């Protein structure tokens, strides 16, 4: 249900880009980065994308998701560390709370691959 809405949001964003293209090219692949510290489950998103893009401008597009881990930075220790998602987020060395997040918050459309008709040389 949640990923249904995420897919809808993704499609709205992509449609804005697509409609701004003069040729409205057929999209072949969409590359996403999805962080671990977001509310998105990649497998569910993959499934939702497949179902929801049927009969749309993204019908033939493949979704490629790259996951990024949760990485925090402890200012006291000047070290990056990987919190244990669901269990512990504090710095394992000095127990300071999770302050800066260096990776894991990404929810990004990196790039789009599309085909364009070209005249042979």
């Amino acid at each position, binding site marked *: 249900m949640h990923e*249904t809405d995420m897919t809808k949001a993704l499609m709205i*964003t992509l449609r804005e880009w697509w409609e701004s293209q003069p040729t409205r090219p057929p999209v072949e692949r969409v590359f996403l980065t999805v962080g671990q510290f977001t509310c998105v489950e990649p497998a569910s998103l993959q499934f939702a994308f497949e179902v929801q893009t049927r009969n749309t401008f993204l019908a033939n597009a493949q979704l490629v998701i790259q996951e990024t881990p949760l990485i925090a930075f402890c200012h006291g220790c000047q070290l990056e560390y990987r919190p244990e998602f*669901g269990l512990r987020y504090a710095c394992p060395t000095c127990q300071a709370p999770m302050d800066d997040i260096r990776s894991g918050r990404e929810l990004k*459309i*990196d*790039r789009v691959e599309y085909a364009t008709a070209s005249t042979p040389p």
Partner: protein
Amino acid sequence: MHQIIDETLGINLLHANQAGADHNRAHFDEWGITCLNVMSSPGAGKTVLLEKTLAALTDTLKIAVIEGDMTTELDADRLRQYNVPVVAINTGRACHLDARMVAGGLHTLSQAHTPTDLDLVIVENVGNLVCPAEFEVGEHAKVALLSITGGEGKPLRYPVMFRGADVLVITKVDLAPYLDVDLSRIEANVREINPQVTIIAVSAQTGAGLETWFDWVRAAVKPSQLAAAH
């Protein structure tokens, strides 16, 4: 014959929603309204907290509520008893409010009320700890509720919601003697994820902590408005 073109976009997946949220916030700012987005799991006590808030603050602040509910207007009807404008948004199968829905709610609101007369718009989101965390609606502050009946581990299991909250209201603290739950443990777990969060423990039943919450709300409303209200 076709050639593959690879175009770098680098845009946020929620770009369209974020733009809508920024648009809503610009309207709130223009009208001098503070907007709070109230989120929690179902049954944490959002509606009763709002009831207490409306009862206590409508003397000094002009408040409206945008109420998200998946199917009914039951919660909205509870809040209408306090003689404040309440716009109910039935989200259908969507499990959160998004910026577009709230924009629709604002539109409805502005048909019956002059928005510049309002000080505070409280958005009561759909009961859900997962999705609302990612969808801004144009709020100035995020309020997360956590009932002590949910247990100590909840912040660790739903970290995105609790990381994003500006204030955490721990509810139903009057039940603490009957539960095997340590309030300080809940607070510590939330702070592990979000060291800056303001934590307020309340009981709508006994009234404990409510004054602290009301003070927080008063302080969240833009100072110029409070000055104008006095």
